[in-house]
């Protein structure tokens, strides 16, 4: 019974109604869901395994997409110089990119919201220290932060260990350049909520500050945080692609979208356009779709801007 009530509530909800009226949001959602599903199911639906060196042959190298002259229906989007199937590479690449981006975003969310909540609620010295650190962080471009962390990791960790930890390093680097957004948004929202009577009532009752922050304030500020999370997911994907493109990200044997684009660069002027353009277009579509969803959420939570 309560479940049915909740479903009915969802269907009647303002958000879903607005969603059905926004073609851009629907299109973006469909694209995002398709890409995420494709990435998640890559090991099962991809035609070949791009990590398995035995599964492809140099003989199939540089085949154009299936619809072009000389294309092979076995390789829908063509192959690269190694004879790897582009479609499989992209699906596996997206899988890697998305999981790094999502993990980084989650770390940034927990770190940023935690610090922002505490800074906004406690105020005083703690607030000052956290927000100055955030200001410093904000003054450094995200790429620089990521390069810095990657550089430090290279210097500190032995070479083989660093190679093993590459994914962890790049995830951390992205997370550290994204947490500030969450912290600042959370802090600003807490400032608004803190003076509302329901928080005053909780303080008056003598509830524990942690309980007030997590149970009373946090549910009331998730709206703006959700928007930031969506937009930052797109930033995280781009950041990972940039780092991989610059060569500080993931190595060529486990290609993410950025790595695929870097490999494709070599073929930019040689006529094998698909090796560069298909992963690039894929990346653009993914990021635009996520950003459109973010915009939709932002409109939803800011009725004044509708």
């Amino acid at each position, binding site marked *: 019974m*309560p479940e049915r009530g909740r479903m009915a509530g969802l269907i009647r909800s303002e958000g879903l*109604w607005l969603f059905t009226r926004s073609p851009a949001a629907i299109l973006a959602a469909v694209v995002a869901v398709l890409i995420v599903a494709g990435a998640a199911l890559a090991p099962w639906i991809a035609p070949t395994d791009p990590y398995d060196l035995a599964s492809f042959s140099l003989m199939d190298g540089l085949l154009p997409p299936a619809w072009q002259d000389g294309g092979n229906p076995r390789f829908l989007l063509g192959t690269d110089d190694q004879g790897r199937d582009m479609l499989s590479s992209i699906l596996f690449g997206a899988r890697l990119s998305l999981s790094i981006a999502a993990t980084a975003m989650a770390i940034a969310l927990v770190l940023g919201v935690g610090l922002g909540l505490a800074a906004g609620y406690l105020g005083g010295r703690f607030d000052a220290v956290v927000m100055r650190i955030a200001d410093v962080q904000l003054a450094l471009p995200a790429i620089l932060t990521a390069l810095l962390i990657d550089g430090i990791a290279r210097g500190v960790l032995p070479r083989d260990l660093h190679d093993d930890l590459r994914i962890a390093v790049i995830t951390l680097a992205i997370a550290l350049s994204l947490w500030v957004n969450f912290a600042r948004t959370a802090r600003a929202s807490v400032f608004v909520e803190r003076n*509302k*009577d*329901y928080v*005053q*009532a*909780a*303080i*008056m*009752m*003598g*509830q*524990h500050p942690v309980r007030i922050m997590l149970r*009373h304030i946090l*549910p*009331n500020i998730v709206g703006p945080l959700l928007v930031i999370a969506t937009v930052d997911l797109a930033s995280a994907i781009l950041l990972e692609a940039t780092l991989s493109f610059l060569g500080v990200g993931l190595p060529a044997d486990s290609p993410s979208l950025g790595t695929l684009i870097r490999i494709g660069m070599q073929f930019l002027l040689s006529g094998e356009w698909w090796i560069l353009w298909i992963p690039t277009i894929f990346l653009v579509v993914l990021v635009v779709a996520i950003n459109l969803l973010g915009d939709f959420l932002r409109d939803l939570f800011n009725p004044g801007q509708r």
Partner: protein
Amino acid sequence: MLQVEGLSVRFRHRHGAIMAVEDVSLDVQRGEIHGLVGESGAGKSTIGAAIMGLLPAAGEIASGTLTLGETDLRGLSPAQAHQLRGKRISMIFQDPQTSLNPLMTIEAQLIETIRAHEDISVDAARARAIALLEEIGIANAATRIRAWPHQFSGGMRQRVVIALSLCTGPDLIIADEPTTALDVAVQAQVLDLIQRLARTRGVGFILITHDIGVIAQVADRVTVLRGGRVVEQGPTAQVLGRPRQPYTRALMAAVPPLDQKLDRFRLPQVEGEAPAQTGAAQEAGDWLKAGDDRTAGPALDLSGITVRFQGERQGLFAKPAEFVALDGVSLSIRPGTVMGLVGESGSGKSTLAKVIAALVQPSAGDMRLDRVILPPMRSRARGHPSRRQVQMVFQDPYSSLNSRHRVIDILTEPLWLYGLEPNAARRDRLARSMLALVGLTPDAADRYPHQFSGGQRQRIAVARALLSRPGLLLCDEPTSALDVSIQAQILNLLKDMQGRFGLTTLFISHNLAVVRQMSDDIAVLKDGRLVETGPSEAFFAGPVADYSRDLLAQTPTVRFDQDAIPTGTEV
């Protein structure tokens, strides 16, 4: 002059359309004040907006005719309507804080408005503006015209807004709740001004208000609205003197009288709210009484409570000036009685409640609860027993309940927090029973606060306070955000609960009539100082301090004969 015939306004929304105003007819003559009165959702402001041609995008006039003099208001093009607004119809809004541009001087705003409608020189416009300010009672208009809005008090600002609405010489002024944001003393002056302008200038006014007392004071004719329909219409003396409709009578019965203390308000039963005394409420009632064997709450003694806030910094190196919010306030509330605390806005009423509730740190003074020291904010531990004993009902029921929590979670929280009831199932049962006690149906427990009206939310807030099993209840303007009929219900509820469970209560209000209904003793605050304190009835019979006398004299006395108002069943 203005004639509205069969006006219906429709608002479209995603599930279809609702009629906000249905078949309303009214007319306003020159020099006449026509009152539109009704509770929230009655369609008062919508009628005003329809006449102005300023309906929101979703709204449209479905039928009816609107004529001002010879002009058909519905037939105007947007450009013509724009010309007409300000020129022939002006508007006065509720909140003078926001209806003036804070970045323009009074002079600039007046001259801009005059010159927007008339092609005259700046100097001529300035002369007209100064004359206007003098007319509405601003002394030294020639110099004060150069002031900024923030340099004027609320009442002065509302006068300036009125001057703005007058400066093009309109035929009709629509005043939408013009005095709701003002203190009583200032309200009386602004109403006088409106009445004088109607008489001397022959301007027609439509006075939109929820306060039937305001209508009784100044309106010549009145239209009582409910749910977008006209309930009753006619000359004020006739409608309020011999109300024919039960709704008008109920509206009048709900106005707290200043000149007598009622045991409780006599109200008709309201749909959707269960009678307070049912079997379901038994458990909560018994539980509240079982707390301890005392029959009355604790005594509260305050002495020398002083609160200083840091004011604005005057210069980069100057020490910020201090603002004294409370200055040596000493008062005592006897066990199990209600102390009414009155004063204008800014007098420190709420600050005092917050000091007792440990939300504001006093800079001096001490508090005792039953002769035991009650520590102030910074030294009151989270687990201090007074955290449970002292509870508060806040002014705004829209922000005092966490909108992301279900009502049951809001209500069981104090039971869990103070360890009053270890068993979760019993906590749940008690909370539901408490809902019945405050007059809500038990199924309210599973809903969220936004699904309730203001009055129902305030009932939930009272239930939450009671579930701490408090001894001292602080009520900070608990009804000022509510419609009169709802106010009367909540006051009845608070009276019942206070009497039944012997709660010591501090009842804060700016409304003397409301305080009279509630309190045994009374304290008057002015600018953070205690002006007078004493038994309530003696105070209303003959206040001692000059300020109290002024306050009483300025409070509009609307006398509706309570006995002559036959109502339905008593709650």
